[in-house]
């Protein structure tokens, strides 16, 4: 048997690659093992129709860590982020509302819908920005050790608290009030225009098995926001999010990381409660001093480690992680650009996210269907046309549309996700879009529909939950993945979590991978 690696990273998603790159830069020998024949995990750009490429999963960036971007010099490895402006256009009956990066420009766009809302928009942006600053500070730091936080933990928490306090009492009170609110309550507090409320709520809802009236949903709006960004900000990658993974892989390889694809891990070998090896399907055994898994926590513990090697209380916690898949994806190869009569200003208007979220009731009704195990009759849609940012993704003059569809629950009350169900979902999505862009159905050259079951099967993502665990307040920060184990280490010595299932959670942020690598290095220097 070969000499053990210093670290094995399971999964070549963007977090696994980030962790691998940092560890290798610290001098460790690292191998990444990925089950798929391509790297990228949920950030991957693949051909889905001859000549047409699309982001199979994530089609925009979470707030990607600027520090990781700098540390790993990702620009030199080809990662180019773009910030479309307007970031979003929200479709409404015959009209459209654009959300720009500049609040005053957005206020002008809101004015035709409600002059009062237009006047309130800048103040809303400030309130959200204050709260987002707190969320960002939490995101940038590792969770404290609980119930016995160390001095460093306390100092860090104190600094976050002080930072918040410095914004003034009112800002602090506003932030604390906002965190557990529902999106609907928050937005009803501020605005009267249903179109505006739908557009903002739609920026927070992706991935949640909750409607805008669900408690704690306001937090999600903040979670997906980069510091300093106006609500609803969108970041794209030229060439698709797969470029982010390729850039990370480039940086990792340059640091000495070996990346193996088509290498599915079947089992994590545990001896004397320490993780010592991974066993690949086919039987190959790779020994290592430590193992970092970016597979989701349920997959990691219940399948790869197996409950036999774990304390029953811990197994109970892991089993109770809520991972209800809520999303499907539809990809369209288009012969021509969809024309939305409600939108002036030409193609540039469509470079960000095109949203079908025309109001809070619409969104809540879409969720109502899913609440009882059905697929939304009229789903909430977030579409991106990446060919407007990088025409090379499709043949000349042709386009691609990537659509995140919500709600399509993993657990159906009746029936299963078979072919007919999948096509019915595709039909419903095209029909809804056609209400706003009548030329769309005829422009469709090819359609790919990925149900939550498909997401699970392709990515090994339990229940197809796009964030490796719902981003609800009780599953975040020091409670992610489960209370007591939020510091990347696990009850199995030498086994770490480094994916979206760990703090700060889902989205293309690179932060779970970054923090996990730091936790490994911290443990190494402590022992």
């Amino acid at each position, binding site marked *: 048997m070969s000499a053990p690696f210093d670290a094995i990273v399971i999964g070549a998603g963007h977090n696994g690659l980030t962790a691998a790159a940092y560890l290798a830069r610290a001098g460790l020998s690292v191998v990444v093992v990925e089950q798929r024949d391509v790297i990228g995990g949920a950030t991957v750009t693949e051909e889905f129709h001859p000549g047409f490429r699309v982001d199979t999963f994530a089609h925009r960036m979470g707030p990607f860590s600027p520090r990781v971007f700098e540390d790993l010099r990702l620009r030199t490895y080809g990662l180019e982020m773009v910030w479309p402006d307007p970031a979003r256009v929200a479709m409404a009956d015959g009209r459209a509302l654009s959300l720009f990066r500049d609040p005053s420009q957005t206020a002008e766009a809101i004015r035709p819908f409600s002059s009062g809302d237009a006047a309130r928009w800048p103040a809303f942006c400030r309130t959200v920005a204050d709260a987002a600053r707190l969320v960002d500070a939490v995101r940038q730091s590792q969770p404290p050790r609980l119930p016995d936080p160390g001095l460093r933990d306390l100092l860090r928490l104190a600094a976050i608290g002080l930072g918040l306090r410095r914004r003034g009492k009112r800002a602090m009170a506003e932030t604390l009030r906002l965190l557990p609110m529902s999106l609907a309550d928050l937005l009803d507090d501020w605005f009267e225009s249903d179109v505006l409320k739908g557009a903002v709520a739609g920026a927070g809802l992706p991935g949640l098995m909750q409607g805008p009236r669900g408690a704690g949903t306001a937090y999600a709006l903040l979670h997906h926001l980069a510091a300093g960004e106006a609500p609803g900000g969108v970041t794209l990658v030229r060439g698709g999010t797969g470029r982010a993974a390729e850039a990370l892989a480039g940086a990792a390889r340059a640091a000495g990381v070996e990346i193996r694809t088509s290498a599915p891990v079947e089992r994590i070998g*545990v001896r004397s*409660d320490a993780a010592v090896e991974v066993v690949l399907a086919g039987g190959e055994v790779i020994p290592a001093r430590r193992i970092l898994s970016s597979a989701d926590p349920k997959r990691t513990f*219940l399948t790869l480690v*197996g*409950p*036999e*090697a*774990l*304390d*029953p*209380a*811990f*197994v*109970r916690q892991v*089993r109770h992680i809520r991972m209800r898949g809520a999303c499907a994806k539809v990809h369209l190869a288009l012969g021509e650009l969809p024309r939305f009569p409600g939108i002036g200003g030409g193609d540039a208007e469509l470079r960000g996210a095109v949203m079908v979220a025309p109001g809070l009731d619409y969104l809540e009704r879409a969720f109502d269907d899913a609440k009882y195990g059905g697929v939304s009759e009229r789903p909430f849609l977030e579409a991106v046309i990446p060919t407007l940012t990088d025409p090379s993704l499709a043949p000349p003059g042709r386009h691609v549309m990537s659509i995140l569809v919500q709600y399509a629950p993993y657990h159906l009350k009746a029936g299963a996700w078979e072919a007919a169900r999948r096509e019915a979902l595709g039909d419903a999505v095209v029909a809804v879009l056609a209400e706003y862009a009548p030329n769309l159905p005829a422009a469709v050259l090819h359609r790919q529909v990925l149900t939550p079951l498909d997401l699970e099967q392709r990515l090994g993502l339990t229940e197809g939950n796009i964030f490796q665990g719902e981003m609800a307040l009780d599953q975040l920060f020091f409670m992610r993945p489960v209370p007591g184990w939020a510091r990347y280490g696990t*009850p199995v010595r030498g086994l770490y979590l480094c994916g979206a299932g760990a703090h700060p959670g889902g989205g293309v942020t690179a932060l779970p991978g970054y923090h996990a690598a730091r936790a490994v290095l911290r443990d190494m220097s402590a022992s």
Partner: protein
Amino acid sequence: MLRTTPFHSRTALLCQAQNWRRWAGCVVASSYELSHDREYWAIRSAAALLDVSPLYKYLVRGPDAARLLDRIVTRDIRRCAVGQVMYTPWCDEAGKVLDDGTITRLDEDLLRLTAAEPNLRWLHENSAGLDATIDDVSDSTAALAVQGPASRAILRDALEADLDSLRFFRATRAQVRDIPLTITRTGYTGDLGYELWFDGRHAERMWDHLIAAGQPYGLTPAGMLALDIARIEAGLILIDVDYVPARKALILARTSSPFELGLGWTVRLDKGYFVGQRALRAEQARPPTWQLRGLEIEWDALERLYAEAGLPVELPAAAWRTSVPVYAGDEQVGYATSGCWSPLLKQYIALAHVRAPHTAPGTSLAMEVTVEHRRRRAPARVRELPFFNPERKRA
């Protein structure tokens, strides 16, 4: 609601003393006669028949049955051969004892666990990913203990079973008329003895049959009071008395690890994962703070204490189950949790939790005694357990 055991129609008729107690929700006889003396002596000099049906009993079945139990208990169940019985405690994640009982391997894929507390949920929680089914057969399985020097002779007459080759902590199947049963050479008396396990529907017939077969040998139904003395002599701990199961402990200090209960011999740290392994491994690396020990209260000194009050020694009529301070000089270094006068050994003995370094056999300590309403300290000697360990137990 008071529940009864499958033998209630028989024990109720015999229980002249109407002296009942609750055990796992069932009423069982404390003693059948007004005094438990005769029942105790039956255990040690003839044979006693004890209704132990209130024990919780679980049948674990399937290819992973042994693995399931192995991941719960401290002993290595994979090494438990078919026809073997193992006594073992089991712990929570912190390595603190939850319960103790026996595991009988009835077949490759079939094991029976006995327990003092309900354990169904715990078994289920630990069965994730394992191919094993769990049946709670506590109510449907009757259990009788036949304990004492004459027990083998009685069962030889009563049953068709190969008792002579049945070694200590082994099990065998047997048949009485149409009643199938398993016999284990186990018990809670530290004597030669057997336990019989069978379907509760046959309980009354089995009882009558054994009483008849045992008559020539002096087989005597015995209650819990007699058993309590025998088990103290045998150095066998009792849940809720000598230790607090971790789930019921209000404070951490009330919990005990197997090492602290004299059960270190059951802890196989070198086997695969089991609940509490990590904590026990860490604990084993440290010298233990607490140890379970025997105490023998010195007779002459006790006599002097009573003489000062103008009295002869007054001994407890039955085994006591209260916490009694134990001292080294003026410092309290432990507490006794049960004690009795041993009619057989003619010694006043107790089970005690003693703090290091006062645990070496022979160490002189003192136990609190109340003499004529006054608290006194009676000198006592630390003893290795068990107090009584006859050859015939294993022979």
